[in-house]
């Protein structure tokens, strides 16, 4: 059969060339579609991973605003996040580690804050009189961030902040009176590792002595602009343990609880488990997994992936149909040959297999060539598709998330595992969509091989039915009449 098939292909050069061109075009388009599909999936995964595997327990501001009665103040409807509530989530499946944080501001008699440029332009007295919209309280010169552990803090993980001396606070330091501060602040106040400072709550009711155990430099910060007050300046940030933050801000409530999952893919599963296994009111609270950011970034890629999938299906169906039609037309010309083979004792099955071999040989050659040329076409197509895609920084407005502490001091979120910045508009750099990498992967090659086989089989199927119905007598013998 193979020998006959090769002889037939060699003799019918025109038909062979036509089938080859069609197969080559189909194979190239299919491999382009598959490459773009794979590249899109890979990019979406990379974006997912770059956005991190963290999930934040936070107040569902949208629901609160919707449910707030007219005339009700925000501090009357805001619900705090308690440690008891947060503890329900830390032992669930998929949680690799977690961090609770309390944010606030403090003052210090012996410590000189780094002045912000705009701060010096604020009229005297206004700073003291400033009341944030939610809490109607004054702000201190320094912001304080108490954490279960500093190990997963985004600023340190992404390199914006870099520890240069000492250590970062960890769970082992809970209950300690340690502090980690910026180098600029340390230098300004002639402080070094082991130095002691005294801080007090903004209402002056609590005073605590802290020992410097870590100093960090700020390589980049998104909040360097738009600072009206000292405590907004990241150089004036003091990192302490969670217990210390509770004491000096007089707050038992958490600003945020962040859970770091073992795999970004588990975010949805974690959310579902949280809803099923905890007593948290999910109308008031929510788990934020950077979904909005993810959705915004991947919408273009999802469109590309869908387009690629539809493209592949259309090409396979169209290509297979065209090949089938050509084979049906040519098989009618081979009726005589089929009759001869049957009269010689050849089985119809072998004749069908010969037809399949003929198209498969062409398919194999086309498939092999398309492995090289397909990538070129994929790059062209993906370039055309990406031309409208966003490739720039995404700016998000961060809602004010001020939480009222027991003594009324404002707790401003500034260091999350996720939410950055202050209560004002903040530029948030989303992971950039880099150019799609449409390299050929082994699964793509296997898929192409499978689709090529499918096309060859489908193209042979209808002609095969025709062959099976042939009567050798009708082909070969004059009709008696």
């Amino acid at each position, binding site marked *: 059969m193979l020998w006959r098939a090769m002889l*037939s292909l060699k003799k019918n050069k025109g038909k062979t060339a036509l089938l080859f061109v069609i197969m080559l075009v189909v194979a190239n388009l299919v491999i382009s579609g598959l490459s773009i599909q794979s590249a899109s999936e890979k990019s979406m995964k990379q974006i997912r991973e770059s956005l991190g595997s963290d999930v934040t327990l936070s107040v569902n501001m949208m629901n609160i605003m919707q449910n707030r009665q007219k005339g009700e103040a925000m501090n009357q409807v805001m619900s705090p996040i308690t440690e008891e509530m947060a503890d329900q989530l830390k032992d669930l499946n998929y949680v690799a580690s977690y961090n609770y944080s309390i944010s606030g501001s403090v003052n210090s008699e012996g410590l000189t804050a780094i002045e912000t440029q705009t701060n010096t332009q604020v009229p005297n007295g206004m700073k003291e009189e400033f009341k944030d919209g939610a809490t109607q309280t004054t702000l201190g010169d320094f912001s304080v961030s108490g954490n279960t552990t500093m190990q997963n803090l985004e600023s340190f993980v992404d390199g914006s902040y870099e520890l240069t001396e000492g250590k970062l606070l960890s769970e082992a330091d809970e209950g300690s009176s340690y502090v980690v501060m910026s180098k600029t602040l340390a230098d300004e106040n002639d402080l070094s590792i082991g130095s002691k400072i005294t801080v007090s709550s903004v209402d002056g009711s609590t005073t605590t002595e802290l020992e410097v155990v870590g100093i960090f430099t700020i390589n980049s910060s998104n909040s360097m602009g738009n600072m009206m007050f000292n405590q907004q300046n990241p150089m004036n940030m003091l990192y302490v343990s969670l217990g210390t933050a509770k004491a000096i801000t007089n707050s038992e409530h958490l600003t945020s609880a962040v859970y770091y999952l073992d795999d970004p893919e588990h975010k949805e599963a974690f959310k579902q488990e949280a809803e099923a296994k905890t007593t948290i009111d999910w109308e008031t609270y929510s788990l934020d997994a950077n979904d909005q950011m993810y959705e915004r970034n991947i919408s273009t890629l999802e469109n590309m992936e869908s387009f690629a999938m539809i493209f592949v299906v259309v090409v396979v169906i169209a290509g297979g149909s065209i090949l089938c039609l050509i084979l049906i037309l040519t098989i009618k010309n081979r009726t*005589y040959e089929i009759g001869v083979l049957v009269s*010689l004792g050849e089985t119809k099955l072998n004749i069908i297999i010969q037809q399949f071999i003929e198209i498969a040989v062409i398919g194999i050659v086309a498939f092999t060539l398309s492995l090289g040329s397909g990538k070129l076409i994929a790059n062209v197509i993906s370039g055309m598709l990406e031309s409208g895609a966003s490739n720039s920084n995404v700016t998000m407005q961060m809602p004010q998330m001020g939480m009222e502490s027991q003594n009324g001091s404002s707790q401003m979120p500034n260091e999350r595992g996720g939410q950055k910045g202050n209560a004002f508009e903040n530029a948030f750099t989303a992971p950039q969509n880099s150019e799609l990498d449409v390299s050929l992967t082994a699964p793509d090659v296997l898929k192409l091989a499978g689709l090529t086989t499918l096309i060859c089989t489908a193209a042979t199927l209808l002609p095969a039915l025709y062959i099976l119905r042939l009567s050798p007598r009708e082909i070969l013998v004059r009709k*008696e009449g």
Partner: protein
Amino acid sequence: MEEILRFEDLDYYYQDGNQQVEILKKTSQSFEAGKIYAIVGASGSGKTTSLVLAGGLDQPKAGKVYFKGKDIQEIGLTHYRQQDISIVFQSYNLIYYMNAYQNVLNALNISKVKMQNKRAYALQVLNSLGLDASLSTRDIRKLSGGQQQRVAIARAIARDVDLILADEPTGNLDSKTVKEIIRLFIDLAHERNKCIILVTHSQEIAKKCDVIIRIHEGKLIPVN
């Protein structure tokens, strides 16, 4: 003489609209090795039908065809055509994308003949029929009618089967070639002990055969 083929109470008809046209009516006939048979009759009498049924290319409406005492339905029609018989047609029925020796080789491959050097054997068979190596490797369509018929006969005899069926094998040939082809068939029957069954319109060819069978009113009737 060994009986090679036997028709037993064969019936055959075809449907022409509402009418049933009877071709063969409960007819029987035996064919032996070492003889050449000519089946003659008027146009439409059933000559080709007899050959078609003998070759397993169609099935009778009633009755049986036996090859060496065995019902060919039990042998399996494909196996029967593959291993036990060869058919030579008026229009040669060669495969156009193969040359002469490839046509013969193809038949050997289909029959699953086990042989050391099939190519050399095919060329030898063709040579014995007057086709040298240069003709044997030529495009089939570039051979004359007589040469193509020789290739068809070479294809038939290369498989060394006991029964060869030929439907008007000389119909498209000149008189000189006709004589050569008929001589070949006679030699196959007498010298190689084959059973040859020819369908022919030609009385002259029929007279050269050992047995003439006339089909009349659906019956096969030996004349001599």
